[in-house]
């Protein structure tokens, strides 16, 4: 089984304090740690597990600048066989529609049975690349995937719905499956694995190498144009409890007690 995994190099922001930069349209990137998008991490792990079970290859593909090699090397260290990075100054400002077009141009000449990607990216959260790419490739797709069972020419997948409910659907292969977090437990990478991956080749492709023009990519080829970034309005401003940890603990306990809960 030949599997392609689409990954994105994103800043880790779940636990970080983030600031809007001077352009007012993006966040301050300095000081943030970049890594593989969390959802893509699960997609990669799933791909490697399928390869370990059924044989075949795993190719990791990203669209990004040179620093995105960090994410590709992580993929190689974790069991991907090949890595490709599509990179070009013209790609700057691409939204997920433009990214899907770039990925399609790279992937259409490659053999694959399965394409896995994260259900969404933790930075922009568009939740779009998988099904858009499937449409461009003319293959089946499923999103919010929590379980994959491969059969003869088909995959049976569990999709996460709301409120804990799941549905099982069968898709014909080849297929693009967008993976939800929690589908597996991504493995840790050994230091030896990382060292080995440092030596492996990462193939780069520019706009000239793929079948797209300047107008198809970047801001020109995108649907969304960010005009303004701002701090979300507050629904209910918390009253901040201040003091030493001891004083704060006493205040919290006092509030809970005042509600008759202690």
């Amino acid at each position: 089984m030949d599997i392609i995994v689409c990954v994105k190099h994103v800043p880790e922001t779940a636990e970080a304090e983030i600031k809007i930069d001077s352009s007012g349209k993006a966040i301050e990137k300095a000081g943030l740690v970049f890594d593989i998008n969390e959802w893509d991490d699960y997609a990669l792990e799933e791909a490697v597990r399928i390869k370990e079970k059924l044989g075949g290859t795993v190719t990791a593909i990203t669209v990004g600048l040179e620093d995105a090699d960090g994410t590709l090397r992580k993929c190689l260290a974790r069991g991907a066989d090949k890595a490709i990075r599509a990179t070009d100054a013209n790609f700057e400002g691409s939204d997920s529609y433009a990214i899907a077009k770039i990925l399609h141009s790279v992937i259409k000449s490659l053999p694959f049975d399965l394409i896995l990607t994260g259900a969404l990216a933790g930075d922009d959260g568009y939740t779009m690349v998988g099904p858009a790419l499937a449409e461009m490739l003319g293959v089946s797709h499923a999103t919010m995937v929590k379980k994959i069972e491969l059969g003869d020419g088909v995959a049976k997948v569990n999709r996460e719905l709301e409120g804990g409910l799941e549905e099982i659907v069968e898709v014909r292969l080849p297929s693009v499956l967008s993976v939800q977090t929690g589908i597996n437990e991504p493995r840790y990478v050994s230091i030896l694995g990382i060292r080995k991956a440092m030596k492996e080749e990462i193939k780069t492709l520019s706009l000239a190498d793929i079948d797209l023009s300047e107008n198809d990519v970047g801001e020109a080829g995108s649907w969304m144009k960010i005009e303004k970034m701002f701090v979300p309005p507050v629904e209910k401003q918390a009253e901040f409890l201040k003091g030493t940890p001891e004083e704060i603990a006493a205040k919290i306990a006092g509030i809970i007690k005042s509600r008759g809960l202690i």
Partner: protein
Amino acid sequence: MNGIFVLAEHRQGKIRDITFETLTKGRKIAEEISSGLTAVLLGKGVKEQAKTLSEYAEKVLLVEDAKLENFNSEAYQKVLSSLINKHKPLLTMMGHTSFGVDLAPRLATALKLPLATDCIDLEFEEKTLLITRQMYGGKVNVKATVSKAEGYIVTVRQAAFEVQKPAANGEVIEEPSPLTEEITKKRFIEYVLPPPGGIDITAADVLVGVGRGIKDESNMPMVEELAKSLGGVLACSRPIVDKGWLSNDRQVGSSGKTVKPKAYIALGISGAFQHVLGMKNSDLIIAVNKDANAPIFSFSDYGVVEDLFKILPLLKSKIYELKGRKA
């Protein structure tokens, strides 16, 4: 280019709340641009649901086909493409749900109509579609313009719009199903319910919710002890279930449970929308997070910006002190 389409989402015979939320927003935009609102219902044996929708829109387009009984993005895409090509709505709206995210991106790509996903607000300004959405897990909002086109597709976030029931008495118009061929790439098999869990977090008076900020599984007993000191129950956000530190019956949020305890203590939870949706109506919310800008503080009664590992042991002993006994 005329009118606004809202695609109804239904499951197991029931129209989902997101549909009425989207219809409410759709109506507002239709009024702003002096246009009409049409609900689109695809299914089988859903005449009753069509009637319900007619109370919210001027028109209900109904397509019935056995192939549309359960949601299948492939079948839905074919029917919706045909309806959009025929009626040319300016805007097609649906929920940013597991239903909408499976359908909208592919539909938009096929029709070459720009798609804006997970919108929390939208309006037309001088014929330009302007949308508001969140990025970085809800830490920032962005306003974005959508590239000019004949028509647009948007998915809207759950609970972003409060349902208002208008005094509409719409007409139900049946359209023939365009599905002449078999659906070959995708097949719905069945719904599966999560295995019944050992604990019902919706019944607890006090919930201690734990998130990513707990960092390591070895810290879990510490929060468990705090929950115990309060006679409460341990709950969590998604990453904790993904890591396997708690079972999924403890998960609060859009893909877990909706809770409304007398007190919800959020520890190391940043407050992504998906989690907040499940707990924001709690009577009392106290959040501890080391990031002063964490979105959770915009939904809490009390906030503490501090290392939770400093607060936790002290809080536990304070609680036992108030109870008049030693920890």
